[in-house]
């Protein structure tokens, strides 16, 4: 079996905020009726997380669930346990019109940490990232410069950002430019 490698092999950049590619992460796209009790139970069993509200993430002991669209969740878990998580989801969703697919190797995850983290993203996405508007547990699908991306705010005030693996280098580069020392705006 070949050795799995993340898109940028945990590359990191230290600017007025720290931008890091977080390495391998298990990601599952789950499509289905988010209001169904069966799907709720399946997500609970697989990750321990509840179904998130609109534009929110929830955390459980074995993973996270993020609201992607009215009929789609992104499940995050350990890279090693993706297949088990999918097996649990699929088994619990028998008879339900739903689909769980492993997308771990199709995506890249970045972490933006530090006091200037909000600013780094605010320069690149058309999203209100002020402390009052975007709070811990908030999740947003938007764009980063020219490509689609989704990000959320952790409890420790660091952002995590998911994008397609094919644009990982581009996203890392624009995040680096945005986090360059001397580029602080000092507004957020």
């Amino acid at each position, binding site marked *: 079996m070949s050795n799995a490698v993340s898109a940028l092999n945990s590359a990191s950049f230290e600017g007025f905020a720290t931008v890091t590619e977080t390495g391998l992460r298990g990601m599952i796209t789950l499509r289905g009726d988010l209001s169904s009790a069966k799907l709720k139970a399946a997500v609970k069993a697989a990750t321990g997380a509840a179904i998130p509200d*609109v*534009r929110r993430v929830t955390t459980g002991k074995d993973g996270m669930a993020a609201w992607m669209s009215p009929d789609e969740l992104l499940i995050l878990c350990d890279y090693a346990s993706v297949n088990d998580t999918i097996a649990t989801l699929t088994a619990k969703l028998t008879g339900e019109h739903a689909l769980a697919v492993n997308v771990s190797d199709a995506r890249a995850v970045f972490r933006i940490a530090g006091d200037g983290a909000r600013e780094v993203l605010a320069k690149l996405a*058309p999203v209100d990232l002020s402390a009052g508007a975007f709070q811990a547990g908030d999740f947003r699908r*938007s764009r980063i410069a020219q490509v689609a991306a989704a990000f959320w705010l952790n409890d420790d005030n660091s952002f995590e950002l998911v994008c397609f693996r094919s644009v990982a280098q581009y996203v890392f580069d624009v995040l680096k430019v945005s986090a360059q020392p001397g580029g602080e705006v000092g507004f957020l």
Partner: protein
Amino acid sequence: MLTLQCPYCGVDAEETELHAEGEAHLKRFGPGSSDDDFETYLFMRENPKGVHFERWRHSNGCGKFFHAARSTTTLEVFGTYSAQTYEPPQDIKDKITAKYPGWSWREFA
């Protein structure tokens, strides 16, 4: 800059997060329809100066299609609503009537 509220995720999305998808409320005429109907369905579009109904897609977001009612002259947005409907909701029609009494757009007024 046009800002539309996505009725699915509730965000006030600005234009760059959206994609315009043409006129709203088109009735499809497929195989077996008359040439006239098919031509109208394919090519005939409204090009109003004023009230207009459009289809938009929250492409850099939840990915869903929705409808928007706006004015092409002032860029005023009267509202957005789900695409799973055959006609604009009454409250949006009322809002337009309040502003532009006697407006009409295709079969709606």
